[in-house]
Structures are given as structure tokens and as C-alpha cells.
């Protein structure tokens, strides 16, 4: 079809700008610059994979309800998987973060990629924290009564009441994971859009 683009059609303009930003071969390329050859590049994908397992096991826990895992051995096992995938998720993410730091991977217009990573990190911490509050066991009681002082001191406790189990469960299973999910998609699309950051160009006397 060779219709001339209609400059006033919002839908067409949206499609064209999306195509410009991320043409299919840029979104899912079959080759990468030769310098993309290090184990450190795997940690972004590993973080994503761990997030996938977290979400999958979280779905099972959500289907059965917040106290199921206390009295079902299957439930306890799913809970263990949920916990360990979270531990892996943070381990991978922190290695990824330091990797990107030492590659100065914000160079060449990639500041937003870096900043979206930091925001994802912070929201992930909040998600994990509300998860601990949603365990409905002694650990939740202790963490809630301890954490309230910090949040209350900032004034945030008026809105975000860590002693309110129902509220914390909602944050943990809807609002915060949604935030992490959206940010990760944005983050990865930004990476595809910009391409992988090249190494420092070196001259005889070191990086220029």
C-alpha cells in the first residue's frame, strides 16, 4: 500500500515514530557488535529470568491466598521458590548494576537507561519489603513494627501504613509489581533502541 502519510492522523504518526524508534531488526537483531562478548552481558537477561520465576511463583501463591503456604507443603515449596528467585534476582541485578557502572554504560545518550535501572532497583526493594510484610508470620510482625518508625519519621506512614496487612498485600501483589514490570519493559526497549554501548576508544595513552 502506498498511501501518502497523513500528517494529521495521530494513529499513523504514532506508528511511524514507533517504527522509527524500534524497527523489527533493531528490536530483535541477529547480530551484535563484536565487542558484545562478555559474561557480564548475561546478567540483564538473568535478572529478567529471575523476575519471570518470581512472577510465576507469585501467581501460584496469589491463586491460593496469603496463608495457604503455612499449612500446605506444596505451598511452602512454592514460597521457597518465590524467596530464592528473589534472592537470585537481587544478586543478578546488583552484578548487572556494577557491570554497567564499570562499563560507563550511560555514554552515548543512555542516561535514561541507567536512570530507569536505578528506579527499577528502588521499586524492587519496595516490592520485596512489602513481600516480607505479606508473609503473615512472625517475620512480618517484626519487620512491620520495626519499619514503621522509619516511614513514620518521614511522614509517609500516614499514607503507607506498614502495620496494615491488607494494604501491604495489595501493594505487594498489584501496584509495585506492575511498576517493576512496566519499568523493565521500558528499560529493555531503551536498550534495544540505543544499541549496546561501545567500549572506551583507546589511544596509546589510555582512554581518550
Amino acid at each position, binding site marked *: 500500500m502506498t498511501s501518502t502519510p497523513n500528517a494529521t492522523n495521530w494513529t499513523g504518526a504514532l506508528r511511524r515514530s514507533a517504527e522509527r524508534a524500534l524497527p523489527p531488526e533493531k528490536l530483535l537483531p541477529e547480530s551484535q557488535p563484536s565487542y558484545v562478548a562478555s559474561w557480564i552481558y548475561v546478567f540483564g537477561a538473568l535478572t529478567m529470568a529471575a523476575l519471570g520465576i518470581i512472577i510465576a511463583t507469585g501467581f501460584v501463591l496469589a491463586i491460593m491466598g496469603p496463608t495457604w503456604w503455612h499449612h500446605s507443603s506444596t505451598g511452602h515449596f512454592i514460597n521457597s521458590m518465590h524467596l530464592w528467585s528473589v534472592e537470585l534476582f537481587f544478586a543478578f541485578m546488583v552484578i548487572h548494576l556494577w557491570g554497567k557502572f564499570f562499563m560507563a554504560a550511560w*555514554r552515548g545518550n543512555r542516561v535514561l537507561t541507567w536512570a530507569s535501572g*536505578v528506579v527499577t532497583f528502588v521499586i524492587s526493594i519496595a516490592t520485596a519489603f512489602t513481600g516480607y510484610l505479606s508473609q503473615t508470620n512472625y517475620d512480618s510482625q517484626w519487620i512491620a513494627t*520495626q519499619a514503621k518508625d522509619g516511614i513514620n519519621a518521614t511522614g509517609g506512614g500516614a499514607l503507607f*501504613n506498614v502495620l496494615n496487612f491488607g494494604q501491604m498485600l495489595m501493594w505487594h501483589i498489584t501496584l509495585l509489581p506492575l511498576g517493576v514490570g512496566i519499568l523493565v519493559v521500558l528499560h529493555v526497549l531503551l536498550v534495544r533502541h540505543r544499541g549496546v554501548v561501545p567500549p572506551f576508544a583507546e589511544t596509546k595513552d589510555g582512554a581518550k
Partner: protein
Amino acid sequence: MTKAPKRFNPDRDVAPWTGPMRRYDIAKEVTICFLVVAVLTVGLAVVFSSPDDKAVTLQQWASATPVDFATTAIAELDGTSGTAGYGGPYNTASPGQSILGVSPSTIIGVHIPVDAAKDFVLSPVAALPDDPLAQQALRSYRSATSTQRATWDAAYETAIASQAASYRDGHLVVPLGNYGPVGVIVNALTQMARSGALDATMLTEQRFFSTDFTKPLLFLSDGNYLANKAAIDHLQGDQWGMMNETGSWPGQAWLWLYTMWYQVPGLSTSPNADLQVWAIMMVLTVVLACIPLIPGLRSIPRWTRVYRLIWRAHYAAKP
């Protein structure tokens, strides 16, 4: 007006890549990563499982340490407990923590009203209709002047603090004193807690369904039972507790920096520590997000040359 092109800054800019490409299969990489992480997770879950210490109830607390429970109850009544003297968002009993003269919790005010004496002691006891003695005691306590009440409260506080205070034959036993009806009230509350009725009453205070544990948790945390259990598990703030878990499981290790500040002399004893630590962490988070824009910080990768290790194949291939 045309802008002069910015000078090339190696910590901000890159030259476009014109070198060779190599085959790379993102979809395969992601799939393999997913399988590897799935196997790792199952393995860790099988080997290490996960901790699950049962929640503590008011019943357990009052049964295991009735004198600590009664000591906490009288502190709620006379306004000396942690919650009674807390400040925002629960009440106005304290100006709250402040930084540079500003106290955010005071500005925001009371949003989750908690009246420790009424919510933790008087209302629950009033919910015991079959205990005429307790109702009689409540009536005389409520009709007394505040000076009179304060005298009774103080007398009972002394009595329960005595070495001789104990729980015997279904009653709190304390030395005699001028505490009027307070002894009966605290005793009724303790018995109620030991029966389990207090757990139910505090949770369903306003309605049948409840998912809000604010009041029972505040009451529980005013006593020593919860904290003593935490100390055994190394969960206290001065034990880097935020990073730990019950048992020997790894906890929120990623909170190491946040919890570290509480160990720093000066902050570890500051009355405004919570707010100060939060402020430090917020500033540091903004700095982390803005590293790419901060001269000096953004040059660290180039100076440390760790990148030579990451891209060693690339640099080895270059003449």
C-alpha cells in the same frame, strides 16, 4: 542561532561503532537464562527451603510473660508506653523526629488515630460483659478525676514492677497499694489476653472483616516479648537486623547500606536517626540515578579501568 557542537567527553559520548559484527541470538540467550534460573531456584528451594516462624499472638505473650503483659498494659493506661507517647501519625503525644528543624510527621499530623489507654485497655475490658467486677472497676476508673487516675496508675506501675509480682492461680498477684480499680482492670485484660479473646476483640473492634493489624501490632511491640524473640534471632536494629531473617536464612541483604547507617556512631544514638537515615538514603539514591551527569563520579569507570577486563577480547583484538 546555532549551538556550537559540544566537545567530545569520553564519560558522556561515544563514537558510532563502525567495526565488525558477530552473530548473536538474544531469544536463545533469554530462554537458556530462564531455564538455568528455574533449575537454580528449584535446587535452592529443595536444599534450603524457607523460614516460617508462626506469628506471635497477644495470647502467647500474656501466657508466657503475664507480668510483662501487665506492665505494658499499665504503661498504655498511664501514657508512658511507646505507642502512647509516639506522636504522628497515631497521636499528638510527641513532636516527632525532625531534621533541620522540620518535623514531617507533625506537619502531616494524625491520620491513624490511636488512643493507647482506650484502644488497648479500656475498650477491650468494656467488651467483657460477663465480668461485673471488671465493669464496676471500669465505671469507677472512668468517673474518677484525672489526678486520681494518675495516682492509681502510678501506684499500680510500682506494684507490678516489684520483684514479688507474678501470675498465680489465674490472677496477677502484686503487692498491695493505692491503685484503686486499676488492679482489677489490668487483671481482667490479662485474663482476657490469655484466653485469646483479646486477639479477636482488637482485630474486629470496628467490623467483622479486618485486614488491618495496626492496633494489635502496636500493642505487641510495646512489650518485651516480640523484641526478646527478635534478639535471639539477631533481628534487632543494632544487630544489622534488617538484613537478617529468622533462623539462618539470608534476608534483605540489599538493605545493607540502609541498616549500616544505624550502626554508625552519632546516628546509632540520635533521637532523629530514622529521619536522618532516610534523608541520607534518598540523597544517595538520587546521586546513584544521576551518576551519568555528575563530573568526577562518572569518570570513575574510565579511571579504574575495570572495563579493560570486561572488554578484554575487544582490546586484545585491536592492534
